[in-house]
């Protein structure tokens, strides 16, 4: 996940040659049914899960069984779907940070969340601590962490240079392991952008939690579609922006 590379460190105006752990970023080209659909900049791990999650959140497939073949050869990732007529055009680049991902999907046609999932604030506090405690982040300072949890605890945690990629990974993991996403919540280390909200909607994840902030567009999207957004989960505090009914015990102000 990282390489130790040389750099110059500065402390109190004094520069010294040293090394530092730097997170690995790789470029992958994803092909679906013979067409290039994406150049992804991502961490070189759990690529199968990443691709499955990406294809699902982009609406190219709806479950793993629609993948007829998945080939990872160097930096080329090739997918054949069962319905091979479904060939998309164009390419796009997912930037490593944020804002670079632009979906083909029309937000107005995004699905509503279908779930009766509820989880206590207390459980969220405990889970976020568990998920976001990353050695790799401490070492490199260069990764995002995304976890997927259910009522019984954490299913999986993914680390990546991009939080969108990490979210795709945990969604891919869930689909590969037959985990019901309508009874899960996503825990992320970074900002809850509209893109993160959109991925949750397509995957039918009813709740997304972050120790960071969210955006107006994400809140707007979530409000209309039944997605609960919780930000600034720190210490003993949190902000619940949308659909608070998923947190038992909240007295909802009309």
């Amino acid at each position: 996940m990282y390489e130790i590379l040389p750099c110059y460190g500065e402390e109190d105006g004094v520069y010294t040659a040293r090394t530092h752990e730097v997170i690995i970023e790789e470029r992958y080209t994803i092909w679906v049914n013979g067409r290039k659909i994406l150049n992804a900049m991502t961490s070189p791990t759990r690529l199968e899960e990443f691709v499955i999650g990406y294809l699902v959140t982009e609406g190219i497939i709806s479950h793993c069984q629609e993948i007829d073949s998945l080939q990872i050869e160097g930096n080329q990732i090739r997918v054949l779907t069962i319905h091979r007529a479904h060939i998309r055009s164009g390419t796009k680049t997912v930037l490593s940070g944020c804002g670079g991902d632009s979906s083909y999907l029309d937000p107005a046609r995004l699905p509503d969340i279908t779930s009766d999932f509820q989880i206590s604030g207390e459980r969220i506090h405990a889970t976020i601590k568990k998920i976001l405690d990353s050695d790799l982040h401490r070492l490199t300072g260069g990764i995002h962490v995304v976890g997927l949890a259910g009522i019984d605890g954490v299913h999986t945690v993914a680390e990546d240079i991009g939080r969108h990629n990490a979210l795709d990974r945990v969604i891919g993991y869930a689909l590969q392991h037959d985990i019901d996403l309508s009874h899960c919540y996503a825990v992320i280390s970074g900002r809850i952008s509209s893109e993160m909200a959109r991925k949750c909607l397509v995957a039918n994840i009813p709740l997304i939690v972050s120790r960071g902030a969210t955006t107006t567009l994400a809140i707007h999207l979530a409000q209309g579609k039944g997605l609960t957004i919780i930000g600034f989960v720190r210490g003993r505090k949190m902000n619940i922006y949308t659909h608070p009914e998923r947190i038992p015990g909240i007295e909802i102000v009309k």
Partner: protein
Amino acid sequence: MNIQTIREDIPLTRDLIYFDNASTSLMPSSVTRIMEDYETSFRSNVGRGVHRLSQVSSQLYWDAHEKVKAFIGGTDGVSIFGKNCTEGINQVAYGLRLNPGDHVITSVLEHHSNILPWMHLRKQGISVDFVRPDAEGYLHPQSFSELIQKETRLITFTHVSNVTGTIQPAKEICSISHDHDIKTLLDGAQSVPHIPVDVSDIGCDYLSFSGHKMLGPTGTGVLWMKEPDLEPFILGGGSIKSVTTSEYTLEDGYMKYEAGTPHITGAVGLREAIRILNHVGMRSVQEHELSLTRDIIHGLSHIPGVTLYGPKGTDSRLGVVSFTIEGQHPHESAHLLDDQYDIMVRSGHHCCMPLMDHFAIPDGTVRASLYLYNTREEVKKFLEAVTEISEGI
């Protein structure tokens, strides 16, 4: 296992009783459809093409190799496609680059395809010895041990006999072989279609088998190698990384061995055949066939004038049953079964003349061989037919 569903997808099963599966199996319509879909929607060459059709073809072709490897428990090895099991065996015979004085052990039980390539090597000074089976058609590991010399480079034998249906103790023989640092080639033509085969458990170095005996199209065969350590049989386009007028560098993996445009449609069909077999489950296939085999053996052994060859019991055997009817040439029996009863069986030497010599059956046998789509009702009709033929009705 839902036999009816499978039979509905194989129109010929409605018209006749097909008991010649050791030769070639029938092919489900779904396999034909997949091949037709490929031909009409994605036909293109594999390998170097950049356009989308070539991308799809290349990936399907690659994936067929992966599915084949997984099917036989050999994901760590390399599988190469050829036109049949025979071609795979010949690739080993050529690719080992044996030297004069080297020694090969095979058996009398073998199909000609696992005898001729080795006999041919005798012309180059390579010696070949034959292990003899017991009266029921079993090869004993000890018999191989007795023939091993310090020059022995390869031990090759059939996993399942295409005459007696006997399943050989492949794991034990491979173990002896490896104790002496000798490579092993398993002829899986009759085993891979009918029983779960796991090369990682057996421990063989090479396994060859055909697609046309396992619901796939004719013209498809596989050679699996634990390591891609054989010299390629043929060279040419598609098998190289680079070429100059003074040298060339071969590709890695299966491409190294598959020069020229391969049978892509066949690979697509074989891939679908494997999907069907995986869906049914090879353990279920084996149990079903064994259950019918018990009926056949029990039935035939009670018909006066019928002589059975091979094991009398039903342990360690498959649904391949050889027999003769007293006073009748096997070809005549097979002709009557076809002409009068719409039952297809094989007759003659079954490409095993040395075995027929060994068993002293100069005219060969009648062979009934089963597959997953055969039924108890068909077995009953077959036994009634043999009874009538043997009574001269």
